[in-house]
Every structure is written in structure tokens, then in C-alpha cells.
């Protein structure tokens, strides 16, 4: 009774390697030792989503030999397994696969507890407690407590406020101090100054039995602002965890042949040039290497953007990250992991990323304008009252009241509350947002650059001429193809999925790497693969064929398949006035065909990773703000260089971590959807900022003339926060009606395309 397996397939099933979980050696490398001779590992299991899943998985894993403890975390979709050292690694991923769940390992260090969130929530709890209790005492004062009672209440308030400010406030003080030390200001500077001055002034007044104290203002200010801060953090963290849980596409280790003939599984970092590595079909090349023995085909889509598998034999050079498809290879490492292709991409990425550091968030830009005005107003108020009245105590009280009432409480909430609502809506549509700044940047773009293989297309071929092929021939081909993991075989096998299968009893099926599959049935020999080999005729150039004893049964025509919703997504983007272009590492003909199908005029083919970055730099120099959508290792530097970037879940690890958005579903409609949500969020953020300005325009004059008592300040601050939050939440409620048509229109296409394949 597995309710969830199929959905996991839909989400991640287009990734051919994801289906087989991590090997036991990989699990061992990823696990960490615990005191008492046990080891623990955490696996991401995206398919878990109900109580039955929890019960099934925990029961099945608990029965494995040596497993001490297995617990599912449904929120993060992870399983943590603890086992005893002496029994060795239990077959965890195999057990999960039997139940129908995919499992992945994720980056080491991802399972660290989120300390910042814990600190924020502790701070929030303490600030909430303080704000609530001080407010109760303040209400008693406002209701008429006088003399000794009022002083007592003020002293108790001070006693509660002091530790709360010291504990919860340091989050803001730290950030404000950091900014000031570097000669900048941010939102936290006016916040910190306002809170500290209000507290200091109130202590002085309390000591002198003054009638007004602002302890409630400083505590509730802290509480409201921490809500905004915590929401912002939760949003980023959720996306980070979700992205970390995706399949890793880089090898963690490899089987190394040692001089004495024995083999050992070593982590990638320990592989030295000259070591010989056994690479089974279905494994990724761990480091740059050359082939010593064997013959196979490699899937380079994620590395170079080439869509067709590349045949290799001894002497060929391999790049780290490519996937070995058909035959086992013995390879010799030619570079260390840190000198391999992957590492080169990481370096390019770091170089490119520094360009983006210049972006400043809307809230910080607003604060940079707002803080000096605010502080100047408060200072001038003080000077004016000194001149007019000469009473320095009153002048300071009024100046502080100005600071408190204008303290950007609403501003601090205005941005995160909208972005959290937007991120939530995107999350429901299978799109992860790395942080709020990404949404702000996405709303600014005017150009979209797509990678081809794996982004506009699925990087997976589709059979174009199924209708021309006899049903019997197709059925034989599919039955033979079932025995291989070559991408073309998988497509052929899929054509018969769900159809009543004829039982072809083959006596044997062999895969001949680089050529195809050979099946024997009685006296007949079927060959599925390259024409020259299947017909035993070196001159034939027909492509992929099926032959029976050397005569042709069928010729198959394949074409890379467009990602679902690609046509509609590109049309949507153009309709909203964006320039669209393709930058691909694939051959010109392949790029040309896709560009035509999508109606894109600007495209370049055969572009190297550094070429992609150069193209983006050129666009940037022209003042364009570019959205890069790409998936491969070769796109990673470009993803980092672009103004903002989106990657599919099937992207290479470093591409995924470089991208600002990651979409989990197959359809490319995620791109216009993310854009629409970001633009809507930006509109609401601007509205909220305007609301905050209107609020100040009303409140500041009242404060200037000294009519702000602690009661007025409390009402004004809560009022403005509630208005800003209510406006931000409109995104969740009102937006659905406008988002639907887009989604429906783009969803109409995948159905058609899926049927055609």
C-alpha cells in the first residue's frame, strides 16, 4: 500500500539516474559516526507524503539487519537511519526502492541544525513574552495607575524589557553594527537606535517618576520586526532544504583498481592522476580521465549540452560529470577532483558571481534613503524644541517619540510578508525561491536567455515516426530495448508502456556497447542499433534501425523532445515584452530546429561555458537585465553571472545551487509563473512602501508637536503593521484568479506532447 510512489515519479522521473538510489559504498561515505559504535545517515526521500508512507518505511527499514533506529521526517521528506558498525551498511536504498521510493544522498553538512532559525524563534518567543506582559502593565498605567503604582509598573516593565532587548535585540544590533562599521546603513540602524534610545529615555524617566515610559514600544517593535525577520528566514530555509534534497549528479566516490589487483571504493577527493577506475554502466565519471579499456556511450548533456550520446573507446578523454550509459569502462584519472572540469566550472562561477554582489535589496535601498531623513528630522525636532522651549528633557522626549513613531516597523514587515506569500504560492506550484532578493531581481528583467539541452528540451529523444512503423516491429524493438539504459532504448521501451505486450521470448539479449542490442530467438537474430552494424553493411547511414537476420524491419527517427509547456512559456515571455534567446553548447542544426519550433530568432550554438558568460556580460554592458534559464554544468557560470537565474530540478548540482529559482515539475510554464508572481510581489511591495510613507506623513507631524504619548505610539505602530500585513496577504487571496489562465494555457501543451511521444 504505497500511495505516493507515482507522484515522485512524475516529479523527478525524467532523470534517468535518479531511479537507482545511492550505492552502499556511497551511503557509507555519507554517513557519520556516532558515539557507541553506530553510524547514521540521512537520505532524502521525495516520495514520502502521508502517514502510511511513514509507517511503511519505518517498519521496512527497522527490519533490516543491524538497523537500530529509522525515523521519517515528513516535513523535510528525509529518513534518518542509524545502524551498528559491526554489521556493515544495511541495504537502505534497496529497501526503499522495493517499497517504491526513490532515495538520494545530499551534500554533507546539509544536516546541520539550523542555528539561525533556532535563535530567531527563541528571540521571537522572548520578545513576544516581554511585549505581552509589558503591554498589560502599560494598559494599567494608561487606565489611570498613578504615583507609586505607576512607578512600580514602570520598574517591572524595565525589568522585563532589559533581558528581552539584550537577548532578542542582538540580532538587529549585530547587523546594524556590522553595517555601520563598514560605513553603510541598513534597515537595522534606525531600528537599533530607536529601540535603544527609547529604552534609555524610559529608564531615566522611570527613575525620575516621569509619567511616560516607552518600554512597551521598544518590546513590541522588536516583536513585530522579529516576525518579519523569521518569516524571511523560514522562506529561504525551506527552499534550501528542498533543493538540497534533490538527487546529486556528481559522483561521491569511485571503484579504484589497485596495483595488487584488488579494488577499493575511494572518495572522489582521494583519487590521484594515474589511478585506474572501474566505471560501470550507469555511473558518472568522477574526475577527468581517459579510457583504457572498454567501449561505451556517454551522456554528455549535463556537461556540454550535447543532446546525442557520444560513443567512446580506448584513448578517448572523458570529462568529470558525464554519465556512462551502456558498457563498463576502465579509465585512468588524468586530473585530481579539484583540477577537473567540475572544479573549473566552480571557479568560473565564483568569478562571475562577484558581479552580482552589487545588487541591494529594495528594503535596504529604502532604508538608505529613509534613515538619514528620519535621523535628521529627529535631530531638527530636538533643536527646534530647544530653541522654542529650552527644556532639554522635553526636547529629547519629543525627538525620541519621533524616532519611535517613524521607526521602520512597517517597512521591516512590508517586504518579507509579501515575499513570503509569493514564495508560498510558487512553492505550491513546485518552484523553490532561494531568497527574497531573487524575486526583486526577477521582476526587473528585460531579457531571457535559455540553454537548450535539458532546459528547453528534456535532453531526451522522442520517436518521431511511430505511426510509420509496423506494430509488430515496434513491439519487438520495445521488448529488446527494455534491456538497456541507453536513452534511445528507454524511449523505445516507453512507447509500449501500458499497451498489451506480446510475449517475445528471447533466448538471449546482449548489449554491444557503441553499436546496439542483439537478441536471439530460435534461429533468428534481431539487432537494434546503428544501421551499419545491424545490416552488417558499413555504408549504411540510416540511423537507428531494427533488423532481423540482417534485413530491415524498421527505421526509427528520433528528435530531442521539447520540455512540456516550452512553446507556451516562450510565447508568454515574448508577449510580456521580453527579448528571448538561446545559448547552447550543442550542434547548430539541433539548436536551429528548437529555435524554429519555438519561434526564437536569436540563438547561438556550440558556445563554451566561458562564451556563455561573455555573452551575458555583453548584454549586461548594454544595460540589459538578463534572466538565465539553464541546467548543465556548462551553464553554471552563466547562471551565476546572470542578473537572476532559474534551473530545473534535473540540473547539475552546482547549477542548482547557483540558480535563484529551482522548479521541480517538468513544465517550463514555471518560468512565466515565477515571473508573474515576482512582478506581482514587487507591485505589492511598492504599495506597502507607499503605505508606510503615508503613515509617516500623518504620524510625524503629530509627533513633531509633541502629542505622541506611549499609547498613541502603540496604536500607530500596531495599526500600520496590520495594514501592511493585510495588504501583503492579498497576494495569496486575490492573485489566484489572474494566475490561473496562464497556468491552464501552458498546461494544455504537455498533454499533447506527452501523447505524441
Amino acid at each position, binding site marked *: 500500500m504505497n500511495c505516493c510512489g507515482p507522484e515522485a515519479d512524475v516529479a523527478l522521473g525524467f532523470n534517468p539516474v535518479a531511479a537507482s538510489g545511492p550505492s552502499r559504498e556511497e551511503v557509507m561515505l555519507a554517513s557519520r559516526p556516532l558515539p557507541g559504535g553506530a553510524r547514521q545517515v540521512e537520505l532524502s526521500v521525495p516520495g514520502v507524503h502521508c502517514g502510511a508512507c*511513514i509507517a511503511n518505511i519505518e517498519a521496512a527499514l527497522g527490519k533490516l539487519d543491524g538497523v537500530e533506529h529509522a525515523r521519517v521526517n515528513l516535513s523535510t521528506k528525509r529518513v534518518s537511519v542509524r545502524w551498528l558498525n559491526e554489521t556493515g551498511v544495511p541495504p537502505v536504498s534497496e529497501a526503499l526502492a522495493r517499497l517504491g521510493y526513490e532515495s538520494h544522498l545530499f551534500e554533507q553538512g546539509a544536516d546541520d541544525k539550523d542555528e539561525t532559525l533556532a535563535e530567531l524563534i*527563541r528571540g521571537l518567543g522572548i520578545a513576544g513574552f516581554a511585549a505581552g506582559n509589558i503591554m498589560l502593565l502599560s494598559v494599567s498605567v494608561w487606565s489611570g495607575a498613578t504615583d507609586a503604582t505607576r512607578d512600580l509598573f514602570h520598574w517591572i516593565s524595565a525589568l522585563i524589557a532589559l533581558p528581552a532587548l539584550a537577548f532578542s535585540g542582538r540580532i538587529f544590533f549585530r547587523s546594524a553594527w556590522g553595517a555601520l562599521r563598514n560605513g553603510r546603513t541598513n534597515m537595522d540602524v534606525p531600528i537599533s537606535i530607536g529601540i535603544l534610545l527609547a529604552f534609555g529615555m524610559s529608564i531615566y524617566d522611570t527613575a525620575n517618576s516621569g509619567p511616560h515610559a516607552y518600554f512597551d514600544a521598544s518590546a513590541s517593535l522588536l516583536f513585530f520586526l522579529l516576525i518579519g525577520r523569521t518569516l524571511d528566514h523560514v522562506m529561504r530555509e525551506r527552499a534550501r532544504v528542498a533543493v538540497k534534497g534533490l538527487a546529486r549528479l556528481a559522483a561521491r566516490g569511485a571503484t579504484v583498481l589497485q596495483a595488487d589487483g584488488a579494488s577499493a571504493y575511494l572518495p572522489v577527493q582521494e583519487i590521484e592522476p594515474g589511478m585506474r577506475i572501474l566505471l560501470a554502466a550507469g555511473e558518472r565519471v568522477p574526475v577527468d580521465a581517459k579510457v583504457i579499456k572498454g567501449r561505451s556511450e556517454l551522456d554528455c548533456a549535463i556537461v556540454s549540452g550535447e543532446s546525442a550520446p557520444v560513443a567512446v573507446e580506448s584513448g578517448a578523454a572523458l570529462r568529470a560529470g558525464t554519465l556512462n550509459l551502456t558498457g563498463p569502462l576502465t579509465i585512468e584519472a588524468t586530473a585530481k577532483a579539484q583540477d577537473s572540469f567540475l572544479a573549473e566550472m566552480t571557479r568560473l562561477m565564483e568569478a562571475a558571481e562577484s558581479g552580482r554582489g552589487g545588487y541591494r535589496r529594495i528594503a535596504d535601498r529604502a532604508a538608505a534613503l529613509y534613515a538619514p531623513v528620519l535621523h535628521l528630522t529627529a535631530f531638527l525636532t530636538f533643536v527646534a524644541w530647544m530653541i522654542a522651549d529650552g527644556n532639554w528633557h522635553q526636547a529629547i522626549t519629543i525627538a525620541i517619540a519621533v524616532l519611535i513613531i517613524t521607526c521602520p516597523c512597517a517597512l521591516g514587515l512590508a517586504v518579507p510578508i509579501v515575499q513570503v506569500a509569493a514564495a508560498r504560492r510558487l512553492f505550491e506550484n513546485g518552484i523553490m525561491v532561494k531568497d527574497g532578493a531573487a524575486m526583486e531581481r526577477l521582476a526587473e528583467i528585460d531579457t531571457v536567455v535559455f540553454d537548450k539541452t535539458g532546459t528547453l528540451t528534456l535532453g531526451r529523444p522522442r520517436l518521431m515516426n511511430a505511426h510509420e512503423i509496423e506494430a509488430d516491429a515496434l513491439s519487438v524493438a520495445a521488448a529488446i530495448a527494455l534491456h538497456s539504459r541507453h536513452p534511445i532504448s528507454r524511449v523505445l521501451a516507453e512507447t509500449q508502456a501500458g499497451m498489451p505486450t506480446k510475449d517475445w521470448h528471447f533466448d538471449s539479449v546482449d548489449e554491444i556497447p557503441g553499436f546496439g542490442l542483439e537478441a536471439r530467438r530460435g534461429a533468428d537474430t534481431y539487432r537494434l542499433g546503428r544501421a551499419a552494424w545491424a545490416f552488417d553493411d558499413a555504408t549504411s547511414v540510416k540511423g537507428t534501425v531494427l533488423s532481423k537476420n540482417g534485413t530491415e524491419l524498421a527505421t526509427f527517427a528520433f528528435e530531442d523532445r521539447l520540455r512540456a509547456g516550452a512553446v507556451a512559456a516562450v510565447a508568454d515571455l515574448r508577449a510580456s515584452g521580453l527579448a528571448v534567446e538561446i545559448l547552447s553548447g550543442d550542434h547548430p542544426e539541433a539548436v536551429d530546429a528548437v529555435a524554429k519550433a519555438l519561434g526564437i530568432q536569436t540563438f547561438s550554438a556550440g558556445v563554451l561555458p566561458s562564451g556563455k558568460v561573455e555573452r551575458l556580460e555583453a548584454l549586461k554592458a548594454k544595460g540589459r537585465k538578463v534572466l538565465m534559464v539553464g541546467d548543465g554544468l556548462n551553464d553554471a557560470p552563466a547562471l551565476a553571472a546572470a542578473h537572476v537565474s532559474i534551473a530545473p530540478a534535473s540540473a547539475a548540482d552546482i547549477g542548482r545551487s547557483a540558480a535563484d529559482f529551482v522548479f521541480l515539475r517538468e513544465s517550463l510554464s514555471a518560468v512565466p509563473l515565477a515571473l508573474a508572481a515576482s512582478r506581482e510581489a514587487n507591485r505589492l511591495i511598492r504599495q506597502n512602501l507607499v503605505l508606510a510613507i503615508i503613515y509617516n506623513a500623518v504620524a510625524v507631524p503629530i509627533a513633531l508637536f509633541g502629542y505622541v504619548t506611549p499609547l498613541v505610539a502603540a496604536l500607530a505602530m500596531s495599526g500600520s503593521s496590520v495594514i501592511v500585513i493585510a495588504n501583503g496577504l492579498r497576494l495569496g487571496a486575490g492573485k489566484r484568479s489572474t494566475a490561473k489562465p496562464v497556468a491552464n494555457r501552458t498546461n494544455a501543451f504537455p498533454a499533447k506532447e506527452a501523447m505524441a511521444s
Partner: protein
Amino acid sequence: MSGLLVLLPIALFLGGLGLAAFLWSLRSGQYEDMDGAAERILVDDD
């Protein structure tokens, strides 16, 4: 006034108790799997 001397400590103590309970539940990891906790109540433990 004398009533306040009794009531105030009681109010603050109760509030503090709530805060302590919250911090304890945070520390003991009760917020780490909110969805899982909701589903686990339906799972029969033998």
C-alpha cells in the same frame, strides 16, 4: 496595592512558565517535523 504584590508575581510567573514551556519544546525538537506529527497520530503502533 497589597493585592498587586500578590497578583503581579503570579501573573509574571505564569507568563514565564509559558515561555519556559515554549523554549523547552523548541529545544526538544518538537517543531522539526510538524507534518509528520500530524500524520503519526493515525499510525498504529503495535
